[in-house]
């Protein structure tokens, strides 16, 4: 733990204790993933710029209800996971375990909503090769969905460790949480670009 705490001086000149949640490797991974996704987002914006009307009309076929429900499910799961980190630090492992399960269940709800959304789109004949918008829609939401799945595996590991007094490590709980919040963060961007902007 000692290596994750460094003293820094804030604007007022007083010393505060900075803490790097999880570990440096996870943050390098997260920042790298954010850069990779940003490349996709910028390529999406360039395609959108070239075919504004087509993208706008295609956006109209998306379900804003499901998009918002997806967002609320991930935000709720992030709340569970963030509180679980606080409880783990306080040594309240039983509640931390329950909140981790809550976070995971919200993640499962997200996947079910996405599966329903995809199947209803495919049912309407809106598939990957339909047009450039739907190509990006399936690509971005698909790659993101893979991250949600991986995040659930992480939460599963956290759940297993928290239940076993011999395995409990705050840093592991923080690492799972950092990854999970990144999944939430990427969805916020996808939601704005695919569903809401016009």
């Amino acid at each position, binding site marked *: 733990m000692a290596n994750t705490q*460094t003293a*820094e001086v804030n604007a007022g000149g007083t010393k*505060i204790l*900075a*803490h*790097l*949640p999880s570990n440096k490797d996870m*943050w390098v991974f997260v*920042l790298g993933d*954010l*850069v990779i996704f*940003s490349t996709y*987002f*910028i390529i999406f*914006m*360039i395609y*959108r*710029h070239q075919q*504004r009307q087509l993208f*706008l*009309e295609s*956006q*109209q*076929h*998306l*379900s*804003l*209800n499901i*998009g*918002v429900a997806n*967002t*609320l499910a991930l*935000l*709720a799961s*992030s*709340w569970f*996971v*963030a*509180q679980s*980190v*606080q409880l783990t*630090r*306080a040594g309240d492992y039983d509640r931390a375990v329950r909140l981790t399960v809550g976070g995971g269940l919200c993640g499962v709800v997200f996947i079910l909503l996405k599966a329903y959304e995809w199947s209803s789109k495919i049912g309407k004949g809106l598939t990957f090769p339909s047009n450039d918008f739907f190509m990006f829609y399936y690509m971005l939401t698909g790659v993101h969905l893979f991250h949600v799945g991986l995040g659930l595996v992480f939460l599963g590991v956290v759940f297993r460790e928290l239940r076993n007094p011999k395995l409990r490590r705050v840093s592991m709980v923080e690492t799972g*949480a*950092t990854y999970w*919040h*990144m999944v*939430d*963060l990427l969805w*916020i*961007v996808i*939601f*704005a*670009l695919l*569903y*809401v*902007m*016009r």
Partner: protein
Amino acid sequence: MTTTKARAITYVWIIVSAIAIVSWFLGPAREAGPPVASAPITIAVLAMAFIKARLIIGYFMEVRTAPVWLRLATDAWLVVLWGAVLTIYLW
């Protein structure tokens, strides 16, 4: 200390969820007729997403209390991404 942080996480969750519900009223899928592009709505949507993203990074990912290099790196990411998205949109 822990309870203050826990409370802050809850407030942030309420704020970001409220912003998500506001964006529900703005998307083109709500239009009955042909969709109309709107720069003011898009700028508002991008600004709200920027705020949501920064709150998630600061409070959920706890970057607010992380070392300076991480605060700078995440802020740089936010500014470059949303700056690029907005520039391409307005171009």
